[in-house]
């Protein structure tokens, strides 16, 4: 049986660089920033630190272990 993947393709679509903070249910972007420190400072300041961070990219394919 297939697990349901965490689908970030839509909510990350508008980010091409920097870092993005996402709610733990992976449904909503809470903050974004040019650097890891910037986005960390933003969520801590807003007391919205129950998040998961991810570096943003337009294209996550083509890495060393390229997937199909």
């Amino acid at each position: 049986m297939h697990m349901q993947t965490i689908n970030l393709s839509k909510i990350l679509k508008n980010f091409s660089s920097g870092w993005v903070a996402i709610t733990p249910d992976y449904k909503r972007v809470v903050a974004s920033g040019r650097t890891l420190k910037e986005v960390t400072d933003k969520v801590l300041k807003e007391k919205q630190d129950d998040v998961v961070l991810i570096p943003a990219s337009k294209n996550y394919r083509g890495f060393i272990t390229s997937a199909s």
Partner: protein
Amino acid sequence: MNFPYTTLPGIPKDTKRPLIPAKFIYKDKSTLPILTLVDSGADYSYLTMEIAQLLEIDLKNVKFEKSFGINGSAFLCYHSKITIEIGGHQLDIPVRFSNQLNTPFKCVLGQENFFSKTRIVFERYKWNLDIKVIENEK
């Protein structure tokens, strides 16, 4: 611990990757959870230099080393040791910090002292990553 694969934007089509939320800890400082690639093809764990800066890890006296991408291109990195927290489990692992990671993934967990401290099963056929910590837990 089961971690479903993550679907990410890709060109020409989206891609599914084995990412896990991991906190990186050094002394009394910690990152927020960061989605981190588990990469069986990487000899070592690589982290962006941004994490070293955030955790205030002093790398001034650390001699740089060269690592190599699959195409043979070299990049510079600095060796250190940190603690990672995954699903409530903490492990000490060696990492290499670099500001030359030529990949969208700025945090990569590789073989050295991570795969040897965990049982990792890539269940790609069902888009699941199964990780069990087996030794040296803090």
